[in-house]
């Protein structure tokens, strides 16, 4: 390829990356704007909106709800996901392809439809909107992704280790907890983190499922948006990005650092 064409393509790529990240960077910067309006111009730098945020009871409550929901969703989705992945990777049985498709199928249903279906069905069973409905729903949405992540990792773990443990007299349970699970830990963490983020970020279905008076962070932001973007939202955006981007990056970095030191 001509170098000139390649340069042009690279330039185009940089522009597209700029398109993807410029607006996010703007939010991160505006979080520190001391102006009482959420937009430009930047009048000065201050942390006042972060203090305001910490004093805003509604937001703190929403953050607490979101964190709890995310952690519980990760727990349920990861547990179900590991069990299913074990079956799919470690056993041969009829209809496996079909089962895999079935486990992934919730991804194929538009979230809006998934939300209305579950809502109406549980209401018919006299189970109105509740935290439980949110938990069930978020777990359903996260499960396919956990299955994909854990399965991919499990395929990479050789069966020999498990067979060696079994031949040395370990029971299937012992083998799972002492051999398979430790080897699978990175995938468990990745899957759990994925599930947490999916739950923490969800708004499309959450709007349908939340009981009145209960807000998660995204629905709280959505409610606050009705008038304009307040500077508090920018600060909240900064905090959320730190949670969902900063923590995984930090965890990944630390894992790398420690695994290198061990060698």
């Amino acid at each position, binding site marked *: 390829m001509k170098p000139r064409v390649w340069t042009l393509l*690279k330039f185009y790529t940089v522009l597209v990356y700029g398109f993807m990240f410029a607006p996010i960077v703007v939010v991160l910067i505006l979080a520190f704007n001391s102006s009482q309006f959420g937009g430009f111009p930047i009048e000065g730098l201050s942390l006042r909106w972060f203090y305001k945020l910490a004093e805003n009871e509604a937001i703190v409550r929403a953050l607490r709800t979101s964190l709890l929901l995310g952690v519980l969703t990760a727990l349920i989705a990861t547990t179900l996901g590991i069990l299913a992945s074990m079956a799919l990777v470690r056993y041969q049985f009829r209809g496996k392809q079909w089962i895999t498709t079935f486990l992934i199928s919730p991804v194929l249903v538009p979230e809006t439809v998934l939300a209305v279906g579950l809502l109406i069905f549980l209401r018919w069973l006299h189970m109105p909107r509740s935290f439980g409905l949110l938990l069930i729903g978020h777990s359903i949405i996260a499960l396919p992704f956990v299955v994909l992540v854990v399965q991919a990792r499990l395929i990479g773990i050789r069966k020999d280790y498990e067979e060696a443990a079994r031949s040395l007299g370990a029971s299937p349970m012992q083998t799972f907890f002492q051999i398979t699970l430790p080897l699978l830990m990175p995938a468990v963490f990745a899957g759990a983190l994925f599930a947490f983020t999916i739950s923490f970020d969800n708004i499309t279905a959450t709007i349908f499922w939340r009981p009145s008076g209960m807000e998660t962070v995204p629905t709280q932001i959505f409610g606050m948006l009705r008038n304009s973007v307040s500077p508090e939202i920018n600060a909240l955006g900064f905090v959320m990005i730190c949670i969902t981007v900063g923590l995984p990056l930090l965890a990944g970095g630390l894992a790398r650092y420690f695994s290198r030191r061990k060698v």
Partner: protein
Amino acid sequence: MPVDRRPWLLLSPALVFITAMVVIPMAFILVYSFYENIDLAVDVPAFQFGNWQELFTDSYYHTAIWKTLRLSLIVTVLAAVLGYIPAYVIAMTKYRHKWLLLLLLILPFWISFIIRTLSWIHIFGNQGALNGLMNLLGLGDLPFQIMYTEFTVIVGFIHVFLPYMILNIYVSLEGIDENLEPAARTLGATPWQAFREVTLPLSLPGLAAGSLLVFVLTGGSYVTPLILGGPSDFLFGNLVYDAVVTELNWPMGATLSFTLLFLLGSVVILYSRLMGMNQLAKAFG
């Protein structure tokens, strides 16, 4: 040979969960679409076609279907055009820190959807960066009304779904034998010919999968138009939202949901007939 029960034992929690919480509710919305709405949040079991009749006769719903298909198509095509070149560059580059480019592609998935969406208000809004820039340059009567139009809705959708498109194309470009293009060149093809007749066709499965994904995700949305659009910028999903959340008309909400499922499901099935099912499986794997 006796059937091994263990895999089914391991699978049963997930299978039961999905059956009870996805499959049965999906069938149930069809049943519920025949129920009759009497008052706000009050409905009685019935078998009548009132909701379906409304859907088929009221042109408001037809407009929404048309708008949804049109907007989804625009977003898909633009995302494909915007996304192909970056995917190509990432796949072909000899850059040592290629992993960084890939990490940056995955990063948006970790950033809150609603923050990414509302961030465009800071760009296009009356107090946004664009108007500020225009002001600095002393251009025209301010502020420009760009915000809350179909344009901003499209930009918002592309911004959120572009990484899906790039990743899908990238995966399929990465799988191409890197000797093929040089081989075509040796046989006398120009660089452009080599790309058009070797690389592009081989990357089509990724492009097709990415396009389907973006189309279906856009078609099922309703939050983006609420945040970035004006009153006339609604999708079919917004009608579902209005029926269920605002009007508390559950039977109509069920009818509209089933219609949305049917429309987008038809697109997926039609598409997979054209492309072959295993390509789609790859897209989600």
